[in-house]
């Protein structure tokens, strides 16, 4: 299988490998895929709650070179984007950027899912925080 030079680059020099603290209220964690399928991606984002901008992103992936490259590229793109801009990232953008062949398109789909899962997790945490703040603001009856 011939890999595009960009996929090879991401594989040899992956960007933003690592983890952010899961308990941090401003960190959203997405874990998608399954070992039986041969693809598991963990994508994390730290979002500035005031500006809604993603100021850090990290990933870890169990999968082929294309899966690793897709998730590495995703973290590169996420940093500096707002939440809404992040949700606008389409798997087809990843396919184009990495020149993924048809048999590897599902890797880009999983990366898009990972982005959405991470942001949803952040939103859930923000929602929970808001509810908690509301409850705390209620004067005790």
């Amino acid at each position, binding site marked *: 299988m011939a890999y595009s030079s960009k996929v090879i680059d991401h*594989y040899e020099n992956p960007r933003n*490998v690592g983890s952010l603290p899961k308990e941090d209220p401003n960190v959203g964690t997405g874990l998608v895929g399954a070992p*039986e399928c041969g693809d598991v991606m963990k994508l994390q984002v730290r979002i500035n709650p005031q500006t809604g901008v993603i100021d850090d992103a990290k990933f870890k992936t169990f*999968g*082929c070179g294309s899966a690793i490259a897709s998730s590495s590229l995703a973290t590169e793109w996420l940093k500096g984007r707002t939440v809404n801009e992040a949700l606008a990232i389409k798997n087809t953008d990843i396919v184009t950027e990495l020149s993924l062949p048809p048999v590897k398109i599902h890797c880009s789909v999983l990366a898009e899912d990972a982005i959405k899962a991470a942001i949803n997790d952040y939103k859930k945490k923000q929602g929970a925080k808001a509810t908690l703040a509301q409850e705390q603001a209620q004067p005790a009856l």
Partner: protein
Amino acid sequence: MAIKLPIYMDYHATTPVDPRVVETIVPYFTQHFGNAASRNHPFGWEAEEAVDKARKQVADLIGANAKEVVFTSGATESDNLAIKGVAEMYREKGNHIVTCVTEHKAVIDTCKRLEKEGYRVTYLGVQKNGLVSLDELRNAITDKTILITIMTANNEIGVIQPIAEIGAIAKEKGILFHTDAVQAVGKIPFSVNDLKVDMASMSAHKMYGPKGVGALYVRRRNPRVLLAPIIDGGGHERGMRSGTLNVPGIVGFGKAAELCRTEMATDAERMGRLRDRLNDKLHNGLDEIYVNGSIERRLPHSLNISFAYVEGESLLMGINDVAVSSGSACTSASLEPSYVLKALGAGDDLAHSSIRFGLGRWTTEEEVDYVADKLINVVTRLREMSPLYELAKEGVDLATMQWEVH
């Protein structure tokens, strides 16, 4: 000694032709180019003589009579001929075949075709070590069983089946026994009489011979096996396989067989040592790696290992100057993980993490060391990038986790 890159460690897939074999073949292209079936002139006679010599060389390798060797285009054809040939010829006697889930596709797909034509096939499962259970085999046999076909050594995991014991059961029940012996012949001792085998498929390009030629051993005595041919047209090979013989290929096959017979013991001992060296280095350098299939009942040059938490294709990318293969779905055209590894019950995630190493006649110690060191580095790096490794280190039981599959 400088290592030549890339390193070839995929000898189960194919082998380079031994230069001594190439030397033997060349005159049969331009000088002795006759058709072995041309009865009327010296061009034909010398071609026939060369074929006869090669036939004996192949027969000697497996302890058979030269008359029992049928040349084909390769083991896939031999498997087809054996299974379809028996099925058609013995249709009156029965319509049931017993085989195994870990067989090569040439056997499995042939059986599946026969099922469409009304035959019944039992696919025996294997134990965790890759071996069939003799009791299960016995229980699967019915009064309609006309053929048992079980491979001698598995191409993916290198495991050697209890062929002599299966042969004894087949003999006892009066059922024909075929074995796909492709990976075993020329590598380990293989005697059709000791093993009580009635038919055996062989391939030249797996034993340092040319591609495009193989053979089927067909027993002539006790019992005499009759086969319906699958290729018609002229009645060559005692009516069992029509078609002009591939004389250069056959000559090469014969020479390769002779070299294997005389050098098998030293080759096996040397390769066994190198294979063990590779295995030991990997086990010393990495934790959570698992050999797939029995370690004791295994070809001397074969090793199949799963590297937990790391996916096979990404591993191969990291050792891109080494030629091996993987059981990962990503490396197969169908995106299905290896069915052989699945049959061992290891779980898909370990199938995705497996690498098959096949050493060979020209593998060196330096190559083994290079491969081991490189692999240890790559696995370590990929584990740092693996969410599964991270979860496992946190003490999470991956088997019970809920995965968000899309």
